[in-house]
């Protein structure tokens, strides 16, 4: 498996997010395999939580379905364990309570032992999670921090000192799936962040189309697409695994094309 920094060596990358266990973990595993083949940069795998307060309705519903199907952290690890030939680095995304309950140290060890590269916890800011994140860094699991358009300069430089892998820039003041994203002043926002930060910058929240990708790609190193993909999975849920994987594949290819084609003058 490539490292996170190797992933960015290939140029601007796409970072799809999928909700593990929606509709079931076998499908999740197949989607990961397909995304790997398509040449995405990093795969973000969401661990479901009953009360995902940074998520909009689409990912909330996906989390509920995953939980109803019995998805939990151990089962996600078991699934990842089987995906040894996947070359694309995997970042786990989830809320802090299930991780606490699993055991913070065991979580870090088990994630590493099944090849996970990083962890992103939207309700654990860098300073609140200092102890946990320090252990992550020490053991080699990259803590992926989030910054938002209203993050102050002083905090940006504190985050920079701790950042590993890449920084997740939230595209607006809002939750996942918010169609308004990204904010209008995206250029100056990204420039402001970049003036403090040397790791690659990924932009996410509300980016749901090739057009939006074309609009923001000059300013970023990676683009996270979450709700748009999760939505496709839920819409095709009744048509079976093959149809789901196929739809995700078609959509993701279009996104990759948008990212790779030369900028229009």
């Amino acid at each position, binding site marked *: 498996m490539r490292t996170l920094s190797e992933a960015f060596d290939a140029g601007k990358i796409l970072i799809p997010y999928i909700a593990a266990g929606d509709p079931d973990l076998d499908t999740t595993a197949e989607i990961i395999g397909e995304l790997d083949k398509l040449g995405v940069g990093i795969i973000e795998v969401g661990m479901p939580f009953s009360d*995902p307060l*940074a998520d909009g309705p689409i990912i909330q519903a996906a989390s509920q379905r995953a939980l109803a199907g019995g998805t939990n952290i151990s089962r996600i690890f078991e699934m990842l364990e089987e995906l040894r030939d996947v070359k694309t680095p995997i970042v786990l995304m989830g809320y802090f309570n*299930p991780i606490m309950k*699993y055991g913070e140290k065991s979580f870090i060890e088990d994630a590493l032992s099944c090849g996970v590269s990083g962890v992103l916890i939207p*309700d654990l800011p860098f300073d609140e999670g200092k102890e946990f994140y320090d252990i992550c860094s020490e053991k080699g699991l990259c803590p992926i921090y*989030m910054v*938002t358009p209203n993050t102050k300069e002083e905090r940006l430089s504190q985050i920079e000192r701790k950042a590993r892998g890449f920084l997740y820039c*939230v595209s607006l003041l809002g939750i996942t799936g918010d169609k308004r994203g990204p904010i209008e002043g995206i250029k100056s926002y990204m420039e402001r962040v970049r003036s403090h930060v040397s790791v690659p910058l990924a932009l996410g929240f509300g980016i749901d189309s090739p057009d939006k990708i074309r609009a923001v790609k000059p300013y970023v190193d990676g683009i996270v697409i979450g709700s748009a993909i999760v939505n496709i999975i839920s819409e095709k849920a009744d048509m079976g695994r093959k149809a789901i994987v196929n739809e995700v594949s078609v959509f993701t290819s279009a996104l990759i094309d948008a990212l790779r084609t030369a900028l229009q003058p």
Partner: protein
Amino acid sequence: MDLKGYFGRFGGRFVPETLIPALEELEEAFYEAINDEAFMAQYRYLLKDYSGRPTSLYFADRLSKHLSDIKLYLKREDLNHTGAHKINNVLGQILLALRMNKKRIIAETGAGQHGLATATAAAKFGLECHIYMGLEDMHRQALNVYKMRTLGAEVIPVTSGTMTLKDATNEAIRDWVTNVSTTHYVIGSVVGPHPYPMMVREFQRVIGDETKEQILQKEGRLPDLLVACVGGGSNSMGMFYPFVNDKDVKMVGVEAAGYGIETGQHAAALTGGSVGVLHGSRSYILQDENGQIVPAVSISAGLDYPGVGPEHSFYHETGRVHYTHATDDEAIEAFKLLCETEGIIPALESAHALAFLVREHKNIEPGTLAVLCLSGRGDKDMEAIKGKLFEEEM
């Protein structure tokens, strides 16, 4: 509490990064405000002339006789404007919102008492107001929904999850993340990320401060025992906090046991839960073996919450406060007793506090000087209780 908002190992700021600047701004504004005599004067003025404070400390003589001659006083928070203690906190926070120039107000509500208080204060100050309420609670507390709408607030039904207070809180947080630059989120209890638990406590401590003064006047001494119900924990914290250093004052917090702790269908985070992170702070919560939040169950919409304020978790572990619980049935029995002995219809939440004394009075020495926080009145619960009190006739 330390600088990061921790009470021992409880508290903190477990929130999306978007909210960090807002919490810092709020914390700073709060500390400035409480050191600003003009702000505090306006707050006290509103408590007095708008809400009708001080609320009385009333000796419940007939009820006392039923309780093995414990000498029981009721702190009558039910006599506040809008019928519960919630307005104490709301008035403080609305003044803060004005100070921070936030013109849009949001709140979550369970029983509707906090939503009602927020809608009331927003109307009084001409602020736009949106209240998130679980659909299930909107049915249980229909009167309060109607009142909030009458006051010009938009009541937004929450249909996610269990459709109760927990989910209303999620939605309010999502709204705040989205509208953080224009909006103040008025949290209704001593829960949430720092500075809320500390700030709400400071705006509720008027309950305990007044009680202390009143009991000294009436009895010439401090009480032996304080009793209050614990949902998120604001009325109890308001009552307890000013007495925390008075070592001889025993304190009992009563959580909702729903159908009984042993059934797993309850709302008792401290006495039936474990440590976790919910809605921005580390505290006792109801969760399963995978760290997923377990829905709370209680007849009382205001106690129907799977978390509790972090400072309560701290007092639970230090043993400063004793926490126990009362079931739906025990609360209903206590509700009836207060109606029949004192002519006071309590909120179902407050009835849980009394239920502790009804159950335990035989183990409490006669003559014990006790104060019970009667956090609210029962108008809102008449529909819910109707089927329980007069089943045969109706």
